[in-house]
């Protein structure tokens, strides 16, 4: 009942808005998915970005579409919906976006770690996740180069991978070529236009653009766009580094990471966290992550982080010790204090919707985000309850 009310409330806000035309701020993967689903649903869509397509965090992440790392709850529901939608997208665009249903393997170093993994998996299964226990003796059948002595693992066949930049680019291309969307790169949003309370479009460095509704898909900069409309959406940067190896013959088959992360995924400490995450790509390179730090938008290379990433990856795959890292890059995950994204219409600024703050899962969650917003915009019942993601859920900060 509560759920129904929430949905009706969202729709009410929108029903007051003629939304045949939509302006999306941000050409990252989230903005691309919003544009794709909305244009497909018949809206007239314009996407603007101050830079290039995928020039933000989408161009600085990995492309994992994960259900394995999420505890039961709103985010897992979103991830499961997204996993299904990505499979549908892959049927048409799979090669273009380098979709691989490779599966994820979570390994535990210790017996308690393995026990924790099994407990999590039991909960996840109840929510619809497929998870298969892998005995210690079978680990090397799945990943021949894994270090000896691990306690066991869990295999998640629903985990998949795309190349995020290609995903954003091809979703936008499909939105444009098949469904008439327009894409304006190199256009910076500097304000919003309003009629009374209502948001009626945006101001840009190239002039005003009117729109029936505006979607804030500005990722880590989503808080700034919200502020332009006079509302608070706390999105902050959480830095992550990735190491990229030289191209290698296929060696690592799945996405492999360590179980011990689970307790820390929603940690609030500003300190550095790293956990070994290793995966091969179609190009032959191996990507090594992942680190998390709250250091603002500082791009300075951190040797401490790189050393830890390398050491942890070698601990999982000793064979990597003799492989060269040829590249490193960092990006700024858009995170909210409660580690959930912000998705849906903003009752404080009618005509404005948000699709930002996806932290370390924006690639994975993009499809569901776009799909749900398109449902809201066309007055359909959203497939999921959006209230956990509502933009006005954060306490106001006393000024």
């Amino acid at each position, binding site marked *: 009942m509560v759920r129904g009310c929430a949905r009706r409330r969202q729709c009410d806000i929108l029903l007051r808005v003629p939304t045949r035309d939509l302006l999306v701020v941000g050409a990252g993967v989230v903005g691309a998915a919003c544009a794709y689903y909305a244009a497909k649903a018949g809206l007239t869509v314009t996407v603007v970005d101050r830079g290039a397509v995928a020039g933000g965090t989408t161009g600085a992440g990995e492309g994992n579409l994960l259900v394995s790392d999420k505890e039961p709850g709103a985010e897992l529901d979103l991830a499961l919906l997204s996993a299904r939608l990505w499979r549908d997208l892959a049927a048409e665009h799979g090669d273009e976006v380098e979709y691989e249903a490779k599966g994820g393997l979570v390994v535990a170093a210790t017996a308690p770690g393995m026990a924790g993994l099994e407990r999590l998996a039991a909960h996840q299964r109840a929510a619809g996740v497929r998870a298969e226990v892998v005995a210690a003796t079978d680990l090397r059948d799945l990943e021949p180069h894994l270090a000896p002595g691990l306690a066991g693992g869990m295999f998640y066949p629903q985990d998949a991978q795309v190349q995020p930049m290609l995903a954003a680019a091809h979703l*936008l291309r499909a939105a444009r070529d098949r469904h008439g969307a327009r894409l304006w790169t190199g256009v910076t949003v500097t304000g919003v236009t309003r009629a009374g309370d209502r948001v009626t479009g945006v101001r840009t460095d190239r002039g005003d653009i009117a729109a029936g509704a505006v979607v804030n898909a500005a990722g880590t900069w989503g808080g700034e766009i919200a502020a332009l409309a006079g509302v608070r959406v706390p999105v902050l940067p959480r830095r992550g580094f990735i190491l990229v190896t030289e191209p290698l013959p296929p060696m690592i088959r799945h996405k492999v990471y360590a179980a011990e992360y689970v307790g820390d995924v929603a940690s609030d400490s500003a300190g550095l966290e790293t956990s070994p995450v290793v995966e091969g790509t179609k190009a032959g390179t191996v990507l090594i992550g992942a680190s998390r730090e709250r250091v603002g938008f500082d791009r300075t290379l951190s*040797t401490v982080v790189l050393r830890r990433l390398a050491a942890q990856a070698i601990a999982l795959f000793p064979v990597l010790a003799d492989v060269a890292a*040829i590249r490193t890059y960092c990006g700024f995950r858009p995170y909210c204090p409660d580690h959930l994204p912000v998705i849906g219409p903003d009752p404080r600024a009618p005509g404005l919707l948000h699709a930002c703050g996806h932290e370390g899962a924006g690639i994975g969650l993009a499809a569901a985000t776009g799909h749900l917003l398109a449902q809201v915009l066309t007055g359909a019942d959203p497939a999921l309850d959006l209230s956990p993601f509502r933009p006005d859920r954060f306490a106001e900060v006393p000024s």
Partner: protein
Amino acid sequence: MTRDLAVIGAGPAGLAAAVTAAATGLRVVLVDAGARPGGQYFRHPPDTLAGPRGAARHGWAEFARLRDELAGHVAAGRITHLAGHAVWHVEAHSEEADARFTLHLGGTGSVAVSSGAVREVRARALVIAAGAHDRPLPFPGWDLPGVLTAGGAQALLKGSLVVAGRRVVVAGTGPFLLPVAAGLASAGARVEGVFEANRPGRFARHGARVLRNAGKLAEGAGYAAVLLRHRVPYRVGHAIVAAHGDDAVESVTVARLDRDWTPVRGGERVIECDAVAVGYGFTPQLEIPVELGCATRVDADGSLVVVVDAAQRTSVPGVYAAGETTGVGGAPLALTEGRLAGQAVAAALGAPPARPSRRLLARRARLRAFAATLHDAYAVRPGWAGWLRPDTLVCRCEEVPYGRLDEAVRELGAIDPRAAKLISRAGMGWCQGRICGYPTACLTARIRKRAPDVADLTGLARRPLAQPVRLGDLAEDPAAGGAEDADGADPGGGGPC
């Protein structure tokens, strides 16, 4: 290890800086990936923009002297020479720190550093003299075995892989083509021709006198004589616009070009050959200054270079640059800049003040003017983009054809070279854009109908890992001292992505 000055690169500029600073009493560490000092220039005959004839000779003599001086300073403990060490990152500390910079060193590529290798060096000041590498331009067939960069052909010569009787075509632009061709001819290769894309005489509106000097330089060094003796034709206003062959190059199409390098219709012919050497100038190696945030600019030859003031200071306090890092200009200029940088560092660190050398300043001004004239005469003209076909590879490592780059920019919203790289994968392979970065940036800008600017070139020059580094070396924390970082076995915290 902590020193007053760390010098990156042991070519002419770095050597001169190290020796000059050491002579004032500073303690210096000189780091270079190569086994011996000398850099690119002194690995093979003096070449490229070598300066007027006298200066070229002078440069050689000076190098020999520098090498001896280096040996002396090393013996006296004033210079620590770390050969075979690649700098993969330079960390800048706060300005209050006494030693502002930490250089992180590794071996080269996936080769483990030797047990005695130094992994970390701290220094109060930094001179970047990392030199430059070959700048080829793509054309259909340039990915065939047998097509080499001009510098690569010289390296092959040393390995005597080019055997007598082989037929080689040399092409590109710039005076560097001459020593390459002469070297090949002297080694017994049949050089079918040297094709200079520019018409240096005609384009030189100013500085004609200097250009005549450049001509004399070639004669003086004996290149022209060698070419003449071997009956090697030298043609200006021509370029290789395609290479042909199944498994290796078998022939090339050479075309006559207009002044923008667009092939003139009917001006084509095919020349049989089994090796090709092409060079269109050089790309300075800017990873470290770019990562440190040093201001850069686009030089007259189209390359991204570091901005320096009269004392070779970059925009970042404590960081100096000399040699090709500040603009491709040849060994004599590099030597001069290196000396000036060494003097400036000494003055800044309070070593007994070296007399500011008017002679060096004047020489630098003269050599820079000379280099600028050459850049003007031997500039890369935009028409080369017209040599490409959709299936011509732009990036050889990742096998990215021009069509895919074009699609990324035109169809997929990659409006700048960085995005074009990420979406097309040009510049994402082993060379990380060191070879294909310049053409990729130029082509992207061209598709966007503009000239490449600093941001465009930086998009493909930014490499936070300045050199490949073996993961095993990276994992070892030199500060911890042990082979296995204690963190290594501990999976730690944080999520998977």
